[in-house]
């Protein structure tokens, strides 16, 4: 059996929503980039994003020439009667020379494992596999080599988990934050009819409306008010789980404040907890953002390798977080 222990040098996995973002991520020091096809097979199916088959092949050549790997996310759940669309996406990724496919659906994993036994498989966060038993099922059944952990586990739980499983783990360290278990949330589909699990779009722009009334701006999704902003207040995008609602006799950000994840201060602890790869969210982000975040995390990880504290990263990341407010999320148990 091959040695599946985490590599001692943690891998920096960076978002590539477009070929241009792939280029800047690679040049800024990404060990790996992840991307998806321009269709419903990937969980960031937003207009203007993603790759054609030819663009993927070009991207793989570009990345490989510079020592970076390309991971292809085919991580939505296949539509009944159309599973071949997802299977074909796996075939195209394999033909393009992708280093791994990131998948969640049993049908997609089964196809990849049986038709492309040489293709490395990563379990997508969309599978929300957070226990040794679930991870072992995917490892033993499909030969999954790495699992992207659901964003519900604390640092202590990740360390404990890594001691009991034989596959690599990858965790999100920066960017947008799902507060629900990924792949187990139908809130957006309830409001809009579009299922993130099936179509790859959460809180879709096509269903967003901003209405101004008495000076206040209301942001709605599928006709439901998600937040309301007083004159002069910065208006955010109405992502359903980051909205303000009334429950009991209180109005609050019931699920999560409009914050984004920043675990740069936990890199040392996460590395010690046995995490093999650090992932940056943001395939919907522009080139400048990607370049800046990747450079900051590259510097932080290089410091880590030299045994130094990654002090400069926080400064490099200043002002990049969504709404400028940050959280370490579930990595600290108090978040729950």
């Amino acid at each position, binding site marked *: 059996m091959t040695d599946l222990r985490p590599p001692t040098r943690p891998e920096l996995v960076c978002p590539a929503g477009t070929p241009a973002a792939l280029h800047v991520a690679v040049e800024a020091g990404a060990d790996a980039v992840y991307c998806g096809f321009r269709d419903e097979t990937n969980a960031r199916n937003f207009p203007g994003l993603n790759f054609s088959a030819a663009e993927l092949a070009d991207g793989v050549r570009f990345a490989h020439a510079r020592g970076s790997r390309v991971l292809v996310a085919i991580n939505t*759940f*296949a*539509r*009944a*009667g*159309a599973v071949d669309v997802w299977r074909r996406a796996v075939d195209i990724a394999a033909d393009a020379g992708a280093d791994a496919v990131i998948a*969640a*659906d*049993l*049908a997609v994993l*089964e196809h990849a494992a049986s038709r492309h036994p040489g293709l490395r498989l990563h379990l997508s966060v*969309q*599978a*929300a*596999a*957070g*226990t040794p*038993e*679930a991870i*072992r*099922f*995917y490892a033993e059944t499909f030969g999954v080599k790495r699992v992207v952990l*659901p*964003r*519900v*586990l604390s640092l202590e*739980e990740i360390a*404990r988990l890594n001691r009991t499983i034989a596959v690599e783990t990858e965790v999100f360290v920066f960017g947008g934050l799902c*507060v*629900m*278990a990924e792949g*187990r*949330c*139908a*809130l957006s*589909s*309830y*409001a809009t*009819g579009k*299922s993130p*699990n099936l179509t790859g779009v959460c809180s879709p722009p096509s269903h967003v409306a901003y209405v101004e009334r008495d000076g206040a701006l*209301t942001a709605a999704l*599928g006709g*439901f*008010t*998600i937040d*309301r902003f007083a004159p002069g207040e910065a208006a955010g995008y109405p992502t359903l789980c980051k909205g303000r*609602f*009334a*429950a*009991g006799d*209180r109005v609050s950000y*019931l*699920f*999560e404040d409009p914050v984004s994840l920043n675990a740069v201060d936990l890199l040392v602890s996460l590395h010690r907890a046995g995490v093999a790869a650090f992932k940056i969210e943001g395939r919907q982000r522009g080139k400048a953002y990607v370049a800046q975040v990747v450079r900051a995390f590259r510097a932080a990880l290089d410091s880590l390798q030299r045994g130094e504290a990654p002090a400069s990263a926080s400064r490099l990341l200043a002002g990049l977080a969504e709404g400028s407010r940050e959280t370490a999320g*579930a990595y600290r*148990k*108090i*978040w*729950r």
Partner: protein
Amino acid sequence: MPRIELALGPCFFNWPADRLTDFYARIADEAPVDRIYLGEVVCGKRMPFSDPIWPEAIARLERAGKSVAVSMLALPATPRERAAMADLAALGHLLEINDMSALAARTGAPFVAGPFLNIYNEASLAALAARGARRWCAPVELPLSSIAIVARACPEVAVELFAFGRLPLAVSGRCYHARAHGLNKDSCGFVCDRDPDGMAVHTLDGRAFLAVNGIQTLSHAVQAVVMTPDALSASGIRCLRLSPHSLDMVQVAKIYRELLDGRLAVGDTEGRLAGLGLPGAICNAYAVGEPGWQKTRL
């Protein structure tokens, strides 16, 4: 006319043990349901209170001629939750699996694939059927047109539809009941027991939207799929699942049985259900692939 079965799903809410005991005793004696799913699926912290009552509740339901399955947690995480699940599995009853964690423990024994699993297509259900899945309750957002395709491709699996109750929409690592009360999950004080049908969530302009139940988020509206047995059969549905709420579930079951036996017209059924005092407006549009909160003609 095909006979469509009725199942009672697991209770999602934090009801006291005595209430659960009384509830299942009355279901055993009076409810025209064929199958019962019971067990804690939402929060492992509730299991020490409810788990002791299950053996007797199961025995009583089985004496009444009901088929019983034990439903497993949708999002197990802690060692204690995983151990509790192993203990439940060891009781030897049919299990409903709601997370892949529980699959390995089955070692080929038959099981039910619950609505919290991401089974959206015929190939993924076939993969589970090969490992022992004999029944499947589709994810609530899956339209009937998709369910029909899956059902046709996997005739060996009996298909259930989530037909009545607030829709289970999401689970999280975070407890929103605790958060709404200024607490966190580890110090929650079990505040979720104050809302036997979930805590209503309204938009800032006062529109009923969602309901919170610990780590779970449900719809505020109440799913009520009301169709003729022929129409259900045409979509491959063999069983309707009714999800427990604090209203009179025996009456809910009786109304659905009358509908499925052809003794109650589709047009009269919704009015009868609404008369029981539903916790929200009726919704049903997931069945046709529209936003789940909407109500449409099925």
